[in-house]
């Protein structure tokens, strides 16, 4: 690295003003980036990492104000510049790859024109030249048939392709620094890996420095030369990637490392000691609690796709779940795993196949018999923000199933709610609060308490931790494991995150395009996957690259 840094951030302070109060987002952050260097800024949501990225290009939200500090690019101070004075910097010297590709392109403009605009505004090409250059740029960003894509609108492209368009826009004017703000977190894991690989290739080629903002320590470990860890608006630790991973000095970094599931070398690092092998707790000679045979679900497509056109969301899926066991279904979005879960719970009607619950065929239950099934099979939703009625108190939420089946008097229901709150390790004081007053992790605990209220045999968890921060994820997973041990609960666990699955599941099924590709005990699947697709999924787990490097050294 040369002595003169490309970007020099000093003591940067940013506050947000919401509803009359000032909330500090950055509390004196200093960071250098050398030319050609890749620096990852890692932190949980609310740590200020995105604010830092946006402050550098002067694209903060209108309610944000910069209190103090300096941002120097080369020799030019960027803070305090007017919108007009920032124009020659933006795009030309600093490119931005935004967070969510699905909403970051103008939906009513062809993508070629949007790429060309990045050249035109800096006077780098004529109208005609910009059009041709845009096609060239789209090709360099890895889009197949760039001349066709240039004439298309964003909605005609997939999420991954749109992110490539955004990369083309960011590199168009040849900036020396690229800011990538969670560039792939909205994408599926395999797409994520391909895009990051390509971005890496492009920037190495041109010697562009990258400021990579991510919540995923695994991604940072794979891609960055240096890692900076942020928490609560402060930069708690920074240093070379290998050093941060091997010898973190700050307790927060250590906590983050411990919680990052894919990075820990030891397989299945679970808090519950000696994770039971399937044979210990689970009695395979007993009949299974749930048995699913040849499950099929077709959804009608919009009429524009032709008369009676259907899409097969679940295609001939069969599996069993025993008491005390966790069966996980993994797959990318659209693989049919959530639909399968809803079919098992009978919240949706299967097109074909049978669902047997504790020896009884429940495939066609209706009315009161259907309602009776609710007592034995419960659901924990992905999003704890949406699954609780905002007007209900925690007591009302947890007592709702008891009310529905008139279990006990109102007073008994309340005291049961208090017991359950205690069981999921929440303080009694939350009972009178409403969901909006709780954190995400607390809400998910309330949802779990509600699911347990009727003492069910089966709990289906649909991505129960994907909306939570990493450190909270670990705690909720541990709680689920503990409750399972206490009550011999059976879990059907739906997730797209292999690292999470590895931590909780006894057996794992891999789904793709509605089919169950393979189903094996967890360690077997991770050690010796049979299907190519499973291998691809495993390879895409962020942090795996680092682990391989470690293993090789």
């Amino acid at each position, binding site marked *: 690295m040369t002595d003169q840094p490309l970007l020099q951030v000093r003591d940067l302070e940013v506050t947000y003003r919401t509803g009359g109060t000032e909330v500090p987002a950055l509390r004196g952050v200093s960071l250098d980036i050398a030319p050609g260097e890749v620096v990852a800024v890692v932190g949980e949501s609310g740590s200020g990492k995105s604010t830092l990225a946006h402050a550098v*290009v002067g*694209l903060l939200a209108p309610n944000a104000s910069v209190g103090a500090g300096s941002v120097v690019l080369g020799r030019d101070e960027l803070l305090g510049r007017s*919108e*007009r004075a*920032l*124009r*020659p*910097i*933006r*795009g*030309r010297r600093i*490119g*931005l790859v*935004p*967070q*969510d590709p699905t*909403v*970051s*392109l*103008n*939906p*009513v*403009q062809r993508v070629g024109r*949007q790429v060309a*605009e*990045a050249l035109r*505004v*800096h006077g780098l090409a004529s109208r005609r030249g910009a059009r041709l250059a845009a096609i060239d740029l789209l090709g360099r960003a890895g889009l197949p048939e760039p001349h066709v894509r240039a004439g298309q*609108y964003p*909605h*005609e492209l997939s999420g991954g392709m749109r992110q490539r368009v*955004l990369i083309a*826009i*960011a590199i*168009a*004017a040849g900036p020396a620094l690229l800011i990538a703000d969670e560039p792939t977190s909205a994408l599926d894991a395999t797409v994520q890996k391909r895009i990051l690989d390509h971005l890496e290739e492009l920037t190495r080629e041109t010697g562009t420095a990258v400021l990579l903002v991510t919540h995923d320590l695994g991604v940072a470990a794979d891609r960055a030369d240096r890692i900076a860890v942020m928490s609560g608006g402060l930069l708690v630790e920074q240093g070379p990637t290998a050093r941060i991973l091997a010898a973190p000095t700050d307790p927060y970094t250590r906590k983050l490392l411990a919680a990052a599931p894919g990075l820990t070398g030891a397989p299945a690092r679970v808090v519950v000691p000696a994770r039971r092998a399937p044979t210990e707790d689970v009695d395979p000679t007993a009949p299974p609690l749930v048995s699913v045979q040849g499950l099929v679900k077709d959804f009608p497509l*919009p009429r*524009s796709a*032709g*008369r009676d056109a259907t899409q097969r969301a679940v295609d001939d899926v069969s599996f069993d779940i025993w008491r005390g066991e966790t069966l996980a279904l993994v797959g990318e979005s659209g693989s049919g795993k959530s639909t399968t879960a809803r079919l098992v719970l009978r919240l949706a009607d299967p097109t074909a196949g049978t669902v047997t619950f504790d020896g009884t065929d429940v495939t066609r239950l209706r009315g009161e018999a259907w309602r009776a099934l609710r007592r034995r099979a419960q659901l924990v939703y992905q999003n704890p923000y949406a699954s609780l009625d905002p007007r209900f108190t925690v007591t009302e939420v947890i007592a709702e199933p008891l009310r529905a089946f008139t279990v006990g008097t109102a007073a008994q229901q309340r005291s049961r709610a208090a017991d359950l709150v205690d069981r999921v390790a929440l303080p009694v004081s939350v009972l009178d609060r409403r969901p909006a007053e709780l954190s995400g992790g607390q809400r998910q605990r309330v949802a779990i308490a509600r699911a347990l209220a009727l003492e069910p045999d089966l709990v289906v968890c649909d991505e129960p931790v994907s909306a939570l921060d990493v450190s909270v994820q670990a705690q909720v997973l541990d709680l689920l494991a503990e409750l399972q041990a206490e009550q011999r609960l059976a879990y059907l666990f739906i997730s797209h995150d292999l690292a999470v699955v590895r931590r909780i599941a006894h057996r794992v099924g891999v789904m793709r395009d509605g089919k169950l590709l393979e189903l094996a005990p967890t360690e077997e699947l991770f050690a010796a996957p049979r299907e190519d697709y499973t291998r691809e999924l495993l390879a895409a787990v962020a942090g795996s690259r680092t682990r391989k490097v470690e293993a090789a050294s």
Partner: protein
Amino acid sequence: MTVPPLARYLLRRVVLAAGVLWAAFTVSFVVLYLLPGDPVATMASGGLDGEPVSPAQLAELRARYGLDEPFAVQYLHRLGAALTGDFGASIQNGQDVGVAVAQTLPPTLEIAVLGLGFAIVFGGALALLATYTRARWLRQSLLALPSLAVSLPVFWVGLMLVQIVAFGWRLLPSGGVAGPASAILPAVTLGLTTGALVAQVLAKSLSQALDQPYTTTARAKGADPVAVHLRHALPNAAVPALTVLGYVTGNLLAGTVVVETVFTRPGLGRLTVTAVGAQDIPLVQGIVVFAALVFVVVNLVVDLVHPLLDPRIATGVYA
């Protein structure tokens, strides 16, 4: 399956439009002919305060207007006639309803078109300026104007304009149809509410569009703020504004009922007031169906323009 999405989209709109027209006819039939009150008695007396009519005359009138038949037969009969453009004759003077509407239309159309133009220019300029300016006070006061405008009674605004501009400053005529100058005050009165609505919707969707990540992308390219506003935000914001414009154009026509009374202009609005006053049921029904026709045609045009503004509509991303 072979029909392209755009053609399917348009076909669907046309069929829906025809359905709305039929239903408007039916609703007005139900309201005017089935509700309590004897249409013949009121027809014959020429309003609520006329002389009583003998039973024999009533029976004769019933037969003449086909009102002695069962409602279903009457309905089908009238619907059949309406399909050929025949809405019957006015009971005030026996004039054909279609002719009466057509004759009074030109002065109404004049102020409606002028009013619409005023609404678009006034509302659009207000919204663009309010969302572009960085001065907080200017933005706040510009955004307060529309809600002020929609809180004023239209007839009162008209009267105050007459009082100030016509009587006070003697700039423009206070009423009648004497040349283009006489249309200005009515048009402004008529377009004020519509313009305020356009301003509200456009300002809202503009500021939403400016909050979208794609405008951040455009700014991150280094694009000029004016270009971001006009080339990225406006095309996205125009769709909801246009939809609202389609919806309120019908109200523009209805607003002439009040405006033409204030400015004593002989037009469709005046005709409506007279018809209601005289309980001229065929004429009222004809006017209601005509208003629905205008609504339907305007919204059809809006639907035709939509795919040009938003390519997602043409390819059927929206149902």
